[in-house]
């Protein structure tokens, strides 16, 4: 309840201060500082192993940070169990490998969490689930099982599932990396729509076109630290950082 109240207060949506994270002796995050305002869209990019996934997984505590502070919607993410539950309710996440529940239908995937976590009545949860499935443009697949859908469709269901919890912040962890090329745009389209409606979004992705169109800021990470943080026009055209330039030339293919 404390978390529920505190999430309503003002301030930035997410604030990371001097964040540190170790895997054994390996330092995955070094001194990361980032502040995300409400309604802001952030694209995080960087070479693989640079700590970008680890960073956003710290935000809803799929990983525990070892040092520094994480404040989400005004509540600090510490060892307080109540805060963790409260924050996870308000933060939706979309994974690289979709992680839909294979033993439930698409509709059940979307209704489950609202019913058991938010305690919504079944009828209300179903109406909302169908609305979000409509929004990601696959209402007709509601009664199918995830295994019967294509990768792109599964990822859109995963987005709908996260939205059904009516989160205030959405995290995307490389949502298009596991998809066949022809399916990437259908997922990105949904994300663009979402962005236009004012959702606070933090996306780890290599889709630079998406970053250019949607992002308010692009964050470039390498070796566990934030190397550069800039609006997209500046990031893509005027970056003077050598590491950024090397990365961009690899991603953009020339």
């Amino acid at each position: 309840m404390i978390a529920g109240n505190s999430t309503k207060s003002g301030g930035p949506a997410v604030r990371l201060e001097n964040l540190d994270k170790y895997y054994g002796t390996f330092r995955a995050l070094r001194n990361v500082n980032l502040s995300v305002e409400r309604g802001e869209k952030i694209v995080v990019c960087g070479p693989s192993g640079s700590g970008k996934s680890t960073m956003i997984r710290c935000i809803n505590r799929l990983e525990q940070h070892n040092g520094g502070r994480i404040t989400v919607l005004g509540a600090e993410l510490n060892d307080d169990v109540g805060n963790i539950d409260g924050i996870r309710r308000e933060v939706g996440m979309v994974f690289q490998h979709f992680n839909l529940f294979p033993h439930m239908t698409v509709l059940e995937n979307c209704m489950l969490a609202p019913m058991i976590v938010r305690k919504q009545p079944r009828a209300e949860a179903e109406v909302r689930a169908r609305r979000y499935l409509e929004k990601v443009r696959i209402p007709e697949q509601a009664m199918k099982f995830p295994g019967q859908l294509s990768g792109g469709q599964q990822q859109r269901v995963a987005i709908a599932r996260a939205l059904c919890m009516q989160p205030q912040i959405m995290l995307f962890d490389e949502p298009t990396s596991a998809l066949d090329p022809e399916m990437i745009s259908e997922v990105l389209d949904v994300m663009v729509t979402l962005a236009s409606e004012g959702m606070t979004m933090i996306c780890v992705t290599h889709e630079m076109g998406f970053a250019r169109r949607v992002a308010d800021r692009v964050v470039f990470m390498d070796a566990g630290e934030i190397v550069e943080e800039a609006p997209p026009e500046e990031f893509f055209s005027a970056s003077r950082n050598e590491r950024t330039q090397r990365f961009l030339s690899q991603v953009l293919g020339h």
Partner: protein
Amino acid sequence: MEMVVVAPPAPGRLEDLKRRFFATPLQALLSLISLAIMVFVVWKLLNWAVFSAVFTTSGGPEACQAAAGACWSVIAARWRIILFGLYPFEEQWRSALACVVVVVMTVLSCIPAFWTGRRIALVWGAGAALYYVLMKGGVLGLAYVGEEAWGGLALTLFIFVTTCLIGFPLAICLALLRRSELPWISRTTGLVIDGVRSLPLISILFTFAIVLPFALPQWLQGDKLYRVILGSALFFSAYQAEIVRGGMQGVPAGQEEAAMALGMSYWQRIGLIVLPQAMRNALPATINQFVISFKETSLVVIVGFFEILASGNAAYGTGEWRFAYVEVYAFIAFIYFIFVFSLSRYGAFLERRMAVGER
């Protein structure tokens, strides 16, 4: 084209036979040896069990003993004691009905429609309760029959069902505890599981039946039957826990992460996401474990219970049927065989079906 159509079927069959059984000299030899063994065993067995056997009780044990073949009259004379033990004669229909309840329950739980946690628990809970009421009586106008009078197949089935009923939830608990992120909980549980697994079942049954009364306060001791069932359930759960844990390891880590990201609590994640998938992975091994523990139920004979093996020993052990031990053991073996064989065939069928349906 025409050649094929005209080709007479008889030589084709002969060719086929030759190709299948006599392709090389070694193959021919192997076929002949196998055939000889088969003919010999089948003939001997049929001769003993059918052609030269005595089936009626009319001649009494003497005529039966004189026969060259099996003396099935011992079964005709003693089947009640083998199946129902010392259960009161007029009430034995209850014992029979209770056995039917167990069989129906087992068959029901083999149907996929019952494979949700709640339904399977309902079937087994209701089955066990029905069994208990039928056997024990004291209500609904049924005469009271204490546990000490239960015996034979009925007792075997009771021990098996209660072992599973207690052992299965315990196995899930143990598996969850061993999988815990908290190192001391998982380590201690691991120690318990591995400790139980390293001991022979007989020694556990013995400890629970005979040693435990020394180590428990009076009010906790309970009946010897239930102590033994508890021991057998503990043994079952130690093995089943590892099977469940194996099934959980087969569930991708992303599943639990997704559930966490949606804000589900630990019990919601386990009960709704992890366990349903893990149990599906673990199904063939689980059925195998059921088969093994059904066979192992027979070990309670050693701590002095009058289950089917002991009642079989009693059926031929006293008086005039002393010579007819082979027939009695064959009968009991046949009963075990029916249960175990059909269950393990079912398990093999499931395994094949799941292998085909693999995503």
